[in-house]
């Protein structure tokens, strides 16, 4: 039987589209997320907001904790490894994780190289600030892309900036003359065939989600209208007053992202949103990790 693992892994991302992937730290939270309509959960020891507060080195989660979450839910389970830490990725593959997020939220393990993701059978999702980063990650074997945003802040401004930048660059390449593609490939430091794909299809070759700072149904709708194919919500849910209600509202906002009347109803009485910190108040910009 011939099979293309990479294609199957891209296909799983296609099944997640139009959905919300939620950060959870316990089996109990995972069950709440699944019941609220999450299409997948991200299992991690500390949500990004707490990583920020705690400081220090943050690493891959305890496999036992991840297995507890795998047993608690029937939807796909994603876990994070540090940028460049292929041994952590090997461990996550060994416990049959559904997706690995090579993530700037954790402390980078390699300041030059990302993981060679073509060596793995399980799929990877990676963060990107712009099209060049996205295509470099895809070239390394990422089967799904998300904006980096600025995790753990509850401030959507960076996710918006990254998504707008990606879409603008896609439009630029889409309308470029064929002969200009070689130079664009050089400028973005990516192989020519990926640039050619974007030129012909006017989109990324893989599914593209929004992540980093999404905290409300309106944030989720904003990102979907800007071209995201789904949304990651990290600290925004379990750092808020009423996680169940907020999670369910964000799920519905992603499905009905153009229906302002419904979005108004969904935004009512959600309790306190995550307090958040503004971009200018942050000392550590996680988005700058890994270019």
């Amino acid at each position, binding site marked *: 039987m011939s099979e293309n693992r990479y294609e*199957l892994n891209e*296909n*799983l991302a296609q*099944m*997640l*589209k139009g*959905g919300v992937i939620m950060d959870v730290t316990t089996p109990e939270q995972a069950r709440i997320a699944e019941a609220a309509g999450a299409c997948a959960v991200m299992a991690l020891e500390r949500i990004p907001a707490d990583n920020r507060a705690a400081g220090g080195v943050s690493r891959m989660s305890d496999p036992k904790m991840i297995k507890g979450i*795998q047993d608690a839910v029937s939807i796909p389970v994603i876990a994070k490894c540090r940028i460049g830490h292929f041994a952590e990725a090997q461990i996550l593959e060994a416990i049959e994780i559904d997706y690995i997020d090579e993530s700037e939220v954790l402390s980078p393990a390699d300041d030059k190289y990302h993981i060679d993701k073509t060596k793995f059978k399980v799929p990877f999702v990676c963060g990107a600030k712009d099209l060049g980063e996205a295509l470099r990650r895809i070239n390394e074997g990422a089967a799904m892309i998300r904006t980096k945003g600025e995790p753990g802040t509850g401030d959507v401004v960076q996710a918006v900036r990254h998504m707008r930048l990606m879409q603008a660059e896609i439009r630029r390449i889409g309308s470029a003359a064929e002969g200009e593609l070689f130079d664009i490939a050089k400028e973005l430091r990516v192989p020519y065939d990926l640039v050619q794909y974007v030129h012909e299809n006017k989109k990324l070759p893989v599914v593209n989600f929004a992540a980093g700072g999404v905290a409300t149904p309106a944030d989720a709708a904003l990102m979907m209208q800007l071209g995201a194919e789904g949304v990651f919500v990290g600290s925004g849910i379990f750092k808020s007053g009423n996680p169940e209600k907020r999670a369910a509202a964000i799920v519905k906002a992603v499905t*009905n992202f153009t229906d302002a009347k419904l979005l108004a109803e969904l935004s009512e009485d959600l309790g306190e949103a995550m307090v958040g910190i503004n971009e200018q108040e942050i000392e550590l910009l996680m988005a700058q990790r890994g270019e």
Partner: protein
Amino acid sequence: MLALQGAFIEHEEMLSKLGVESFEIRQKNDLLRSFDGLIIPGGESTVQGKLLKESGLLEPIRQLILDGLPTFGTCAGLLLLSKRIENDARSYLATMDITSVRNAYGRQLGSFYTEESFGSIDKVPMTFIRAPYIKEVSDSVEILATVDGKIVAARQENQLVTAFHPELNDDLTIHRYFTNMCSGE
């Protein structure tokens, strides 16, 4: 096209290659438009099922299917149409007399591609992503495809289901079969 969550755009593209028009159903109002068939796409059955119930779409769609609307469910769509899901207490539209098994091939590492015959057609590409299969069918259900002895495609009058994703390959066989169902075959 039920467009609550999942890979519905891929189905729309397949239909447009066949010259068939489609539109997306997200809310009850969308059912007011006229249509000849319904596709329930792959995605997560728990998400789509929950949104079906809470949007008030579940009962009207269930009634349309019982009244004979040609309906095609892939993967999660198969689960939503199943009367029984062996390893899940939940049921949703429950209009098709089959018992299915959710995530029957395990996690993502169990996802696979193969080619098998579908009805009388040889070598149809089949992509399985964290897929279910059908464990039991009633006498009124026609089995259309099996892989390693497991039922992966079946039809009961106006309802067609596949455990795999024909929308992910270029082959139009299954979508053509369904559009023929919609025009009364």
